[in-house]
């Protein structure tokens, strides 16, 4: 049997993973890439890789933990592709938001609907939470791809700044610019689309 030949045992194992862990892996991917089709592709790639590398699984962690590790790497690869896009993506949108927020001297415009003085992104009930999550996913999906990739890797995956810049091939200053952009765009989108009245 050739080294890269897949066995029936590997296939059976992968199919059982799909049954036991498929939904979890899908949710994990969805909460990092905010796109249903990409999330499904990532789950598929993860199971294919896991199937081929079954011999590497030594049982030191649970199957789910091991598969999630593979998935996280696939998500990082996905984000690497996205950071190859133009750095200026999002410049215009952010510029419009900052113009709406600040006057010529860099002070907040005294417009409650723009500054949202009383707005708070805190769901107050379980029903509220589901709606908030849906709005959050919609807003994350709208972020410029590069800013989203950096925000997810730094804030959601918990990677430190040095690791993020190295893995995504961006400079230190670019990292902070992109994080700042992601936060401003996210706040603006959430404030516009979700109220906790």
């Amino acid at each position, binding site marked *: 049997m*050739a080294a*890269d*030949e*897949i*066995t*029936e045992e*590997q*296939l059976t194992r*992968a*199919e059982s993973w*799909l049954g036991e862990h*498929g*939904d*979890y892996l*899908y*949710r*994990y991917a*969805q*909460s*990092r890439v905010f796109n249903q089709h990409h999330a*499904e592709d990532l*789950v*598929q790639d993860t*199971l*294919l890789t896991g*199937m081929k590398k079954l011999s590497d699984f030594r049982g030191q962690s649970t199957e789910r933990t091991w598969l999630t590790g593979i998935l996280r790497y696939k998500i990082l690869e996905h984000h690497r592709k996205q950071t190859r896009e133009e750095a200026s993506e999002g410049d215009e949108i952010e510029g419009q938001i*900052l113009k709406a*927020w*600040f006057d010529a*001297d*860099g*002070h*907040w415009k*005294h417009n409650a609907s723009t*500054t*949202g*003085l*009383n*707005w*708070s*992104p*805190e*769901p107050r009930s379980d029903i509220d939470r589901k709606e*908030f*999550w849906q709005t*959050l996913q919609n807003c*994350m999906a709208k972020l410029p791809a590069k800013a989203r990739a950096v925000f997810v890797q730094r*804030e*959601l995956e918990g990677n430190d700044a040095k690791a993020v810049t190295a893995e995504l091939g961006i400079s230190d200053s670019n990292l*902070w*610019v992109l*994080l*700042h952009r992601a*936060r*401003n765009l*996210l*706040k603006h989108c*959430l*404030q516009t689309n979700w109220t906790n009245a």
Partner: protein
Amino acid sequence: MAVKKIYDSLNRAMKRGFNAVFFSCRDLTEVDCSNARLTQRPGFRIRRLLHLCLCRFCRAYQRQVKLVDKQTEAFSKEFPEDDSVKLSTSSRDGIRERLRDSLKNSR
């Protein structure tokens, strides 16, 4: 008309004076993303603190951005555990088919 002009000039002069001492609101929103240029200015911390004491809009912004970070982090931890969200049957079937194809293709 002249009164308005004088008022506007005074207003702008005050804002610029405020910015020189306490930074502008726009500059301060960048600080939490480690804007090194600003954080290295003398007396940065105290000036930032005084700005926040004086500007309720900046206080609101800081609070809201921290909450957005907190909620996003909570989402990333809780959403994968939410059993109500599942792969669709068609997606599941598609993945299964691709797994079987890879067995055929490897032979």
